[in-house]
């Protein structure tokens, strides 16, 4: 198998490589890489045929998105790449509406991500972390509105209980509206507890799993 043996992300029409490039290292001082190395990492992945790149608004305080947006624009690759970013972790001390999963925060976070990524849409928008309080229906309505507005193409959930993902996906199915297409979870030889609830829920609901 190679990076161009593409597959759909969950039960959707979004086509991705079987390995995604994470960019949490981009611009991270201690354990990551500087601009030159980050660009070389990006280039190596893209030249090997990869199309699925993952970042988040909080990575390096926004610097990861800026660097990625610059590399994509410089090589004119926006149409070919599936760009994924995330909202949810707090961005401003003292401001509860600059973090979490509420409608006000999601709109704020997305505007910042689009600006830093130098694009007018995100292909895959992830809820980065469950905030424990926002109702599933509000998240679903907000993200569905962003799909209809053309600001995002698809969405998914990261670091959340399986029941919460199940609630969103089931509501979406029942109402015939855009629903989540994937879960992003820690999953490896040293973290297999997501096999109990999350992976079976993903299978039952047609969600892909991106570990």
């Amino acid at each position, binding site marked *: 198998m190679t990076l161009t043996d593409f597959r759909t992300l969950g039960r959707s029409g979004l086509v991705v*490589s079987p*390995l*995604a490039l*994470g960019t949490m290292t981009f611009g991270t001082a201690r354990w*990551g890489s500087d601009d030159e190395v980050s660009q070389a*990492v990006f280039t190596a992945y893209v030249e090997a045929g990869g199309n699925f790149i993952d970042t988040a608004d909080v990575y390096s305080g926004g610097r990861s998105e800026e660097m990625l947006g610059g590399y994509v624009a410089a090589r004119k690759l926006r149409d070919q790449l599936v760009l994924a970013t995330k909202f949810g972790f707090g961005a401003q001390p003292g401001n509860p509406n600059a973090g979490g999963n509420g409608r006000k925060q999601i709109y704020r976070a997305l505007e910042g991500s689009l600006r830093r990524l130098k694009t007018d849409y995100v292909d895959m928008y992830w809820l980065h972390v469950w905030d424990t309080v926002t109702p599933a229906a509000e998240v679903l309505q907000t993200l569905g509105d962003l799909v209809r507005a053309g600001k995002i193409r698809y969405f998914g959930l990261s670091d959340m209980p399986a029941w919460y993902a199940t609630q969103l996906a089931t509501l979406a199915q029942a109402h015939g509206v855009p629903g989540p297409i994937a879960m992003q979870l820690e999953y490896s*030889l040293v973290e*297999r507890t997501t096999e109990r609830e999350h992976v079976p829920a993903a299978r039952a609901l047609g969600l892909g799993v*991106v570990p």
Partner: protein
Amino acid sequence: MAGKYERGGPAAQPASGEGRLSGANPFGTTKFTDQNWRILEALRGVAGQLGPPPAQVALAWALAQQGITAPIIGASRVAQVQDNIAALGLSLSPAHLQELAQASAPAPTFPYAIFTPELNRAAVFGGTSVQGWQ
């Protein structure tokens, strides 16, 4: 699993190495457990037999699991990207997959330990075996 860490003492410095887990990070030192060092040992054993770096074998294991679409690789060097991409060409044998699965199996917790073919047969379906949809 990228070979960045070696087992150290039991207390404040449970491991030595240069990586994200060596300093401030969201996991603290929680990844340096006895269980995880045992998993690493099994991983190094399989990698040693096959030749590729342990991280590549760990990625090949994840790729082989049902329901997994696209693992996210994180690289701070170009060589790591290439090593990781090579995992797509690494197909682990059923015996090696089984060995890694056994070494990494999470401890059983309620109620998941109940949902086994053996218990289903003996205690639910009157001693017969039932094949479900899928």
